[in-house]
């Protein structure tokens, strides 16, 4: 049964977790500032980051290096999965306030 086997393999690949379990981190956004603005995570591991927007206005978490772009409404949360990353620094910003609201994730 070649076709079902291929379908099963593709489905398994699509649903295969990137790592056994993602570590959890939280970044808050208040008064258009990320906290922490510098987050250190382990290199080589997938992490799960909850972005908590404490402001009333919406924001867009965006990172070119991490290939992420996601809107977070005012006073709400989103979850972003990142990695596994090689050692280095990866910038992120709020696309609605890209000149002032920035942060860096460092993988070590």
């Amino acid at each position, binding site marked *: 049964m070649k076709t079902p086997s291929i379908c099963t393999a593709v489905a398994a690949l699509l649903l295969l*977790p*990137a790592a056994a379990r993602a570590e959890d981190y939280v970044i808050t956004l208040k008064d258009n500032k990320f906290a922490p603005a510098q987050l250190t995570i382990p290199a080589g591991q997938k992490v799960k980051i909850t972005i908590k927007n404490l402001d009333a*206005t919406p*924001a867009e978490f965006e990172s070119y290096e991490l*290939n*992420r*772009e996601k*809107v977070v409404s005012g006073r709400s949360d989103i979850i972003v999965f990142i990695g596994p990353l090689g050692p280095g620094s990866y910038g992120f910003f709020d696309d*609605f306030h890209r000149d002032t609201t920035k942060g860096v994730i460092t993988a070590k």
Partner: protein
Amino acid sequence: MNKPIKPRPCKILLALVSVACAAPILMTSEPAHAVDKIYSPQIVQGEWELEYFGTNTFDHQHDKNNLQEHEISVGYGVTDWWAPEFYGVFEKQAGESIRLSGFEFENHFQFTEPGEYWLDSGLLLAYIHTTHRDDPDGLEVKLLLEKQTGRFLHRANIGFEQEVGSHAQGGPDRVILWSTRYLYDPHFAPGFEIQSNFGKPGEVHGFNRQEHYIGPSAYGQIVPNLKYEAAYLFGVSNAASKGAVRFLLEYEVFF
């Protein structure tokens, strides 16, 4: 939900002017299935997209040279998993002038949260309604896959394009599109693309009777929220044109 307010009339005008300037350069573009845009499965909720996409072929054979396609579209991320997009499609076939060939209604679905699983996935469903009564309509279905490894970003679109309606002929054209880019800088990410149309099952036999292209590409943003994609693809099978260029300008905005 509070919608982001980002009125940017000057940048919208800039994008439209850029499209108007780029179009004549590209007005030498595409065979029916030559080269296409390669989609990411990711959707941004609440984002409007204004887009121009154009292709153009080059060949010493008249019937494969200067074939063009130009698409102008508007899309919107209704949810974080569904984004419809509406296109006007203009084509130039061999020996003809550019004409409005049809309208396309596209639905883009995101299946998984980016990065949650080993592979990100989504689906593209599109219906193309031709404006010419002797031409068939079209249905396009593609599985959209994406994988990031370090600063390398890989995308694959796998699917088929089926003629439908009273003028439809044969089975589906099977296509596989691949792109890899290095996320070097927000303004410039070099990469390459492979685009293959394997033709209809049982009708097109052998590599040289299928259309296969490979070539360098570049991606990035010109200014914030105005993105570009450009590729020059070399035809590597006899059925393909000697070369094809594709170009995309996309302006993203929230209202």
